[in-house]
């Protein structure tokens, strides 16, 4: 196993996440894509951690924190989506254009 293959996998996941963020209209779908990106980061971190044989396991710990942060973000995101939905009856991000010039 080479470190680069994990990193390439992470890059692919991350890029797919980017695509998802850019094309999805539904806010929840956007969140899904973000989740993909974060998991890509986690893959990277763990792979690098293994690569460096880090005694402090910084990579894994970082990955754990990223996962935790991801969870928190999803919680926050869904709350906001709900809020928007309650007021606007839609969860589509492209319909947010109250503040345009």
């Amino acid at each position: 196993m080479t470190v680069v293959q994990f990193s390439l996998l992470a890059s692919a996941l991350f890029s797919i996440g980017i695509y998802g963020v850019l094309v999805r209209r539904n806010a929840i779908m956007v969140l899904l894509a973000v989740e993909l990106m974060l998991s890509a980061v986690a893959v990277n971190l763990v792979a690098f951690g293994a690569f460096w044989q880090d005694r402090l396991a910084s990579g894994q710990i970082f990955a754990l924190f990223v996962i935790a942060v991801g969870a928190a973000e999803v919680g926050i995101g869904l709350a906001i989506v709900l809020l928007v939905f309650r007021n606007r009856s839609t969860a589509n991000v492209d319909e947010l254009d109250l503040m345009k010039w």
Partner: protein
Amino acid sequence: MIHALNALVAAEEAHVAEHSDGGWLAAGAWTLVVVPLVAAAIIIFVGKRLPRKGWELAWAAMGYVGVYGVALFIANASSGIVYEQSFEIARMGSFAIEWGWVVDGLSITLYTLVGVVGFAVFTYAKGYMEGEIRYTFFFGAFTFFAGAMLVLVSAPNMLQLIVGWELVGVASYLLIGHYWEDKENSNAAMKAFLVNKVADVGLIIGVIVIAATVGSLRFTDVLEAAAVGDSALADVAVAGGILLFIGAMGKSAQFPFHVWLPDAMAGPTPVSSLMHAATMVTAGVYLVGRMFPFYEGMAEDVRPLIIAVGVITLFAMGLIAMVQDDIKKVLAYSTLSQLGYMTAAMGAGAYTAGMFHLFTHAFFKGLLFLVAGSVIHGVHSNNMSDMGGLRKLMPKTYWTWIVGTLALMGIFPLSGFFSKDEILAQFSHGGETLALIVAVGGAFITAFYMTRATLLTFWGEYKGSAHPDESPNIMTRPLIGLAVLSAVAGFANVPGVYDGFTEWITTRGQAILEYHPDGIDFGIAAIGLAVGLAGIYAGWVLFSKDRATQRERDSFEVPVLYRLLRNKYYIDDLYAVGLVNPIKGPIARFVNWTNQAILDGIVNAAGIMVKGLGTFVYGFDQRGLDFGINAAGFSAGEAGETLRHSQTGKVQQYAAALFVGMALLVAGFMIFN
């Protein structure tokens, strides 16, 4: 010329050494300047509360100047005097700016002239100005006028000269424009000021050129440098000389700067009188006289120019005087012509003759103007076509006029004869044949137009509507006084007989290197007298018959020449059309336009550009890819709202921009690093 005159230097130096230092009288001569100026200030501020509305103060001040001048004259008549005192009013390193007064033959002559003629004029003015508007202010300004002239005359340095020079100008502006309710009068005042100002530029630059080269503003230093042949000064001598002379041309109204003087008749007549006699127009001649050793030595190359200007002026202006209807204008052009004599004389190296003519001219021209004023006072018109027959109605006025006229014509034994003759003799001696011929012709013209004016004014039938009467004593007495002086002043300098004036006027800090005739050149004198008489005869022939209208009376009329003369050779029009109007009109407007439209336009356009850029960037910022794609013309569907909603969301645009920015940065760095 310098070499020719070097021989005279020794003798002249001995002469210079004789003079006295003047004592307390010279040391106190500063009061000559200060008294009129202070009096003027007092009159302007509180004159109205004085019993005679300020006139008394003005009169007293002029009296003081006159008495003081005469006293200086008498006290030093025998020995001559050179006294100079300066006080520093500013200093820049080694370069001092000073204020002071000079008392020598030249300046005392002018003090006396200003004082005596001024005193007469001020006395007269009391009667003349009675009941006129701004009476008090008039005397304030008038006193200031005289004071300013005295500042000029008393100047031991060129800067003070400039100060007096311009103050005279502004005083004349105030006086000429005295009746400023009429636009014509204020125009005349402006014209006087501006024409002078143009010439002053020459003076100022000339002074700068000379003073900066010599390192001092004092006349004595400059003349000293000129005398020892300072090489730096020699380099700029001609330029400096011409520039100074341009200044002199302005004040002394030499062609082509003469245009202001006839218009200056817009002022009250006493003003004209003083202006033409002792103050203002004499300043130019005075300056050339003051700088005479310079013109005679280092800057001698300027002399032909001076002669030429003088000669042109004396002849051309005399011609115009022949066709004037306004009596004051006749006198005005006559003054121009006489100033031409003086200038030409200076140019020809005849310092004494020129100054002597200035001296005599002051009396009879002052007189003539006062007489004209007296006439105008009675007739309420300036035009000779409204006069005639006043000989009987105003006898004192008439007889004094005759004295003045004959003096002006140069009829023996009146003063004009001697001074004019001396100039002619100097031309003759100096080999200035052309100048001599023109000057003689000028004498004929002078006699002619004065005869014309005399006949039209005092002879024949009265044609006006007012009821003229002899003027009050307060006006006629000064006339008589001046008439006496005009009659006898010529005897102050009769070559070979009595050369007191020569002695006097050449008593200076610097030697005056000129030729002094040993006696009267009778040949020249005879020609002069004959020409004068011929002029009188010609005038008599043409104008003795009382004609009804002006046109008929000008029966010598030669159509083209007449129109040319009536229009003053179109010089005024030329200035107006060629210079003043374009500058005031299109050029000024163009400059203003460049300011408003171009410079401001650039500024405003920059503002608009920034704002426009703001709009554009904001549009791109807010609509991101859509905006970019639409702007680039790739838009597939209908532009507008629908596109915005369906194609991409705002948040995603933000995100896209974020990633695009990221990607570009990264790629850029990878490529360029």
